[in-house]
């Protein structure tokens, strides 16, 4: 395996980790706000509040690692994406700052401010939507290279059906992943009412994920035919994804083994995400930037790979400890501590 492929694979794994852990957190914030406005807050608020605080800090580590890695491995990405993403990236960072401030202010401020809670819930949906712009522009056609400077074509971006279908898929996926995890979490806490409500949310958001994924594929075929035909060649991965989805829905529907059901959801996204990534290969940005263009020098690449693998070795056990301490520690989850 060449160093380029090793590099992008490690980065893709980090991004996948961020997507799953981030989705749980973003969706939990949205459900917390949604249930407050629909008057069902008392049912799931304790569960969500107990889940939210400690894990949040770890999620951003994945994101920071990803940024450092992509610039380190592929310095050219900074040239193309750095300029194009100045506005959307800054908006994402502002939203993240608001979200982070909510945790601090809400924990130490005591009283809850309804508008701040609302803002917090909305950022849970807006942040993933704004992140998807990266994936959308990587398909090409949204960047102009006129007179040597890169600029993002906002009109094309906002009028493209493909770009909106990706936003839709991101939002629906965040809610589905989050609801399925929280169902498991509530079940662990023996909170039957919360489990029932979250199970309902999970089932409600399950089929929309498949429908919006189909919409993304449909519009991708029109937008970038090469990528679409690469996807068709890899259709077995997407079939595995749908099988995992079917298993998850079957388990949730029959109220069985929520832990396995959540793992099936993770597998569903694992296959889809890697299928997307592999079929995107070798382009980092259609049609300007390939993975082999401007790759960093070999010494740097070897050290980066080593650093990243060490990072994973450090991060995964700490994640495991965190999960043991806060998430699946029976007395803590049930609120006895």
């Amino acid at each position, binding site marked *: 395996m060449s160093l380029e492929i090793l590099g992008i694979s490690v980065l893709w794994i980090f991004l996948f980790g961020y997507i799953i852990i981030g989705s749980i957190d973003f969706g939990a914030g949205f459900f917390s706000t949604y249930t407050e406005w629909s008057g069902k807050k008392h049912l799931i608020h304790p569960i969500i509040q107990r889940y939210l605080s400690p894990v949040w800090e770890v999620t951003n580590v994945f994101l920071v690692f990803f940024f450092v890695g992509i610039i380190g491995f592929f310095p050219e990405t900074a040239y193309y994406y750095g300029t194009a993403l100045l506005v959307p990236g800054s908006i994402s960072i502002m939203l993240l*700052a608001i979200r982070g401030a909510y945790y*601090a*202010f809400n924990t*130490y401020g005591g009283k809850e401010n309804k508008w701040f809670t609302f803002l917090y819930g909305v950022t849970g949906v807006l942040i993933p939507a704004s992140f998807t712009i990266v994936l959308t522009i990587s398909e090409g056609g949204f960047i102009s290279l006129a007179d040597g400077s890169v600029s993002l074509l906002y009109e094309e971006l906002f009028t493209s059906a493909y770009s909106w279908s990706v936003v839709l898929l991101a939002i629906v996926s965040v809610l589905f992943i989050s609801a399925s995890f929280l169902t498991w979490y509530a079940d662990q806490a023996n909170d039957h009412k919360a489990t029932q409500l979250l199970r309902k949310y999970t089932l409600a958001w399950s089929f929309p994920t498949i429908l919006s994924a189909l919409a993304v594929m449909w519009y991708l075929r029109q937008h970038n035919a090469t990528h679409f035909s690469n996807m068709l060649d890899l259709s077995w991965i997407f079939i595995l994804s749908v099988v995992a989805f079917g298993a998850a829905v079957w388990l949730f529907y029959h109220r069985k083994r929520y832990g396995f059901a959540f793992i099936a959801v993770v597998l569903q996204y694992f296959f889809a995400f890697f299928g997307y990534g592999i079929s995107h290969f070798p382009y980092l940005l259609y049609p300007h930037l390939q993975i082999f263009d401007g790759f960093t020098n070999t010494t740097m690449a070897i050290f980066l790979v080593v650093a990243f693998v060490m990072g994973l070795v450090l991060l995964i056990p700490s994640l495991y400890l965190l999960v043991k301490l806060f998430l699946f520690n029976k007395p803590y989850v049930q609120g006895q501590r």
Partner: protein
Amino acid sequence: MKTIEGVTTSDHVQPLFYGFVALYTLLGVGTVRILRKLFKNNPPEKELKEMGLE
């Protein structure tokens, strides 16, 4: 490479600058308010007493 050669070619730096200034002003005011409230609700004298250090 001089700073002026490395600067972004994007045209939207100014509105984003104002956006960040507004955001950090709000967060700064919020932080000061929260910190004041924290110390008012739980002054150090009280906490020292509770710890049995006074």
